[in-house]
């Protein structure tokens, strides 16, 4: 066995850390944090100029041909550093999907422009009435000559206000068989009838609701066959799975550790309290397990082995253990631990307070833990579909 990501990944870690040190200042970090939109065009284009946006795509498609361990490391370091990387992540998913399932037009017209940092995509799966039950999508795409008109509403379209396109699931046939009759389009955000409204969250992120009123979309913007959109979305969702938040957990652990080993006002170390040590030990284990599960997903993907329920395992474990830790720390550290970053007396740079507000969503988006546990039960334990 070999638990190393390997020398190429180590090299990426060095490169990206060097790049971040030179191009991503503490002020940039704070601005990204306050903005919460997850994407910054200036920073993003600098990253694209270095080839990082398309780093994981095949060389023959103009990508960097980096292996999955290198991409894991790229994402890990950007995320830990607080870089606004959601746009990068989405564009990675969409680029892969267009290369695998798109038309020549998509590959020629969109893929190079993603790689160069010219354009970005947001994801448009969720709707007000369609969350866990993605296939219950009600946003309608109807024929308009050779082209289409879209009407409906999308929800949780993060980066929708900065991206030029939304990778959007729509319904093109009736609802009686939910997984049939879905079609995916690349919808321009500057098209007539598109209205992007901010949705602010408890965790400080800014997402969007997107209202679609008779939006004209060309048939060339269609991805995959008409009424066969479910397989396109499954492919893109599969890429999104299997990651989890081990990078954020690692940063949280480092913050908690630093605080626990620093002298307090009364001269004591929090680390000397066995409850603090117990919680640190538990957090360290959760972080290591989340990291290992993510590495395993990456390894399976690098080896082209079937992922089974193991992507769902990664996200389910990471999301729920991070939330559990954040709440346990919150209940242990009291008021000072709940002061926000920058407030007089805040401990650990506000890490406990921020994790408390941010972690609940990790058990929700990209598939709730309930959906993921049902999947694990069915795929890994061969239990019946659980209701």
């Amino acid at each position, binding site marked *: 066995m070999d638990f190393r990501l390997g020398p190429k990944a180590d090299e990426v870690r060095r490169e990206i850390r060097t790049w971040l040190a030179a191009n991503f200042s503490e002020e940039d970090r704070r601005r990204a944090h306050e903005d919460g939109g997850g994407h910054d065009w200036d920073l993003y284009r600098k990253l694209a100029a270095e080839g990082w946006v398309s780093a994981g795509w095949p060389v023959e498609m103009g990508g960097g041909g980096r292996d999955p361990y290198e991409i894991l490391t790229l994402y890990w370091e950007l995320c830990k550093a607080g870089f606004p990387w959601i746009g990068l992540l989405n564009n990675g998913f969409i680029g892969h999907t267009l290369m695998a399932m798109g038309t020549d037009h998509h590959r020629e017209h969109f893929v190079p422009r993603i790689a160069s940092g010219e354009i970005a995509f947001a994801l448009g799966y969720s709707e007000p009435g369609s969350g866990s039950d993605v296939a219950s999508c009600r946003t309608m795409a109807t024929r308009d000559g050779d082209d289409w008109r879209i009407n409906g509403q999308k929800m949780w379209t993060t980066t929708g206000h900065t991206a030029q396109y939304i990778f959007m699931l729509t319904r093109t046939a009736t609802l009686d068989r939910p997984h049939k009759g879905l079609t995916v389009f690349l919808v321009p955000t500057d098209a007539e009838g598109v209205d992007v409204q901010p949705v*602010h969250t408890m965790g400080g992120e800014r997402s969007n609701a997107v209202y679609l009123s008779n939006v004209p979309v060309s048939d060339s913007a269609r991805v995959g066959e008409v009424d066969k959109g479910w397989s396109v979305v499954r492919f893109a969702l599969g890429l999104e799975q299997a990651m989890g938040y081990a990078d954020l957990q690692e940063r949280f652990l480092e913050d908690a550790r630093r605080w626990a080993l620093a002298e*307090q006002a009364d001269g004591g170390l929090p680390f000397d309290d066995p409850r603090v040590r117990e919680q640190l030990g538990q957090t360290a284990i959760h972080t290591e397990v989340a990291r290992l599960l993510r590495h395993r997903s990456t390894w399976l993907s690098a080896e082209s082995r079937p992922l089974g329920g193991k992507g769902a395992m990664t996200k389910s474990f990471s999301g729920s253990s991070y939330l559990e830790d954040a*709440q346990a720390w919150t209940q242990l550290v009291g*008021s*000072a631990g709940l002061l926000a970053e920058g407030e*007089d007396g805040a401990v650990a740079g506000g890490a406990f307070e921020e994790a408390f507000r941010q972690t609940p969503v990790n058990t*929700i988006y990209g598939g709730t833990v309930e959906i993921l546990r049902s999947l694990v039960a069915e795929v890994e334990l061969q239990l019946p579909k659980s209701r």
Partner: protein
Amino acid sequence: MDLSLDESQQILVDTFAELLEQECPVSLVRECEKTGFSEALWSQYREMGANVMGLPESVDGLGMGLLELGLVAQRSGRVLAPVPFVETAVAGRLLAAIAPGDPLVARIAAGEAIVSLALPRPHAVTGTGSGRTGRALVPFGAVADAVVGIDAEGLFVAEDAGKRRGPRLRDAGSGALAWWSLQRGEGAAPRALATGDEARRAMARASAEWKLLTGFWLVGLAQRALEIGADYARERIQFGVPIGGFQAIAHPLAECAIRVDGAELLAQEAAWAEAEEPDRFEGLCSMAFAWAAQTALRTADVSLHTHGGYGFSEEYDIQLYYRRAAAVPGVAGGAREELQRVAELCLAPERAALGGA
């Protein structure tokens, strides 16, 4: 055994329920997110006599008991009322008992002063108690005119808010939290109230009362959070059915309903014990506070999670409850720190240092 409220208690609850439905819509709570305090609502509370409810009749108070005060706190917690009802009641009772002639008593009775407490030893780990560093995190400290504290020299009340009071702090959502400097050498000298055992006993008592009333407040929070979650679970359709029909949604909500009932009974028992089982009073207050804090966080968390992504959105109310469920009890050190007090007060009272709670 009688676990029902009497008629006058029920009237009190109904009166406040009605007031708060009118005067404390969730929009008010949102408006006050940046200050943690509503002067307008506090003025409504004062009109209802809320500031004098806890004061004895001898100083023109209404002489209500802790159960009555708790019922008002519980209704306040349901709507997250941004007012220092609990602090004023506890500080008022403390002052009236130990220094009935202190000018602050009359000012509280007249509705002219907000008085809060610097809780002793709120946390062994992060050391934010007044005794350690000369300053303390004070609930509603950002709007308080005076703070009662204790140090090695004894129990005192510090005014001179202009010098001592820090700005309102941003935290997960506890209200008008602020640091108060309680150094004796700074600003106007604090007024001594008591020394030695008398001081420690009075502060231990006040601390227990604050925890009890805050426990009631958190029970109210949890009850409303549960309703919000159950309402959503009945209405939200996924996979063609209300999500409340899925065990993964229904069972955690049911488990919360059980814990919330337990938290309410425990707070009521503690309030009742003041007169009827005084030896158990402080221990039961500690239990009621710790359990209400655990239950409020768990219930708000389960309810928030029931909402899926919407729970996370600022537009939905449940996130207001979730944040306060952790932040409000944090002021006294949080749920886990309180378990230490429970063990000491309930199981080894001979080892619990007098006044240390």
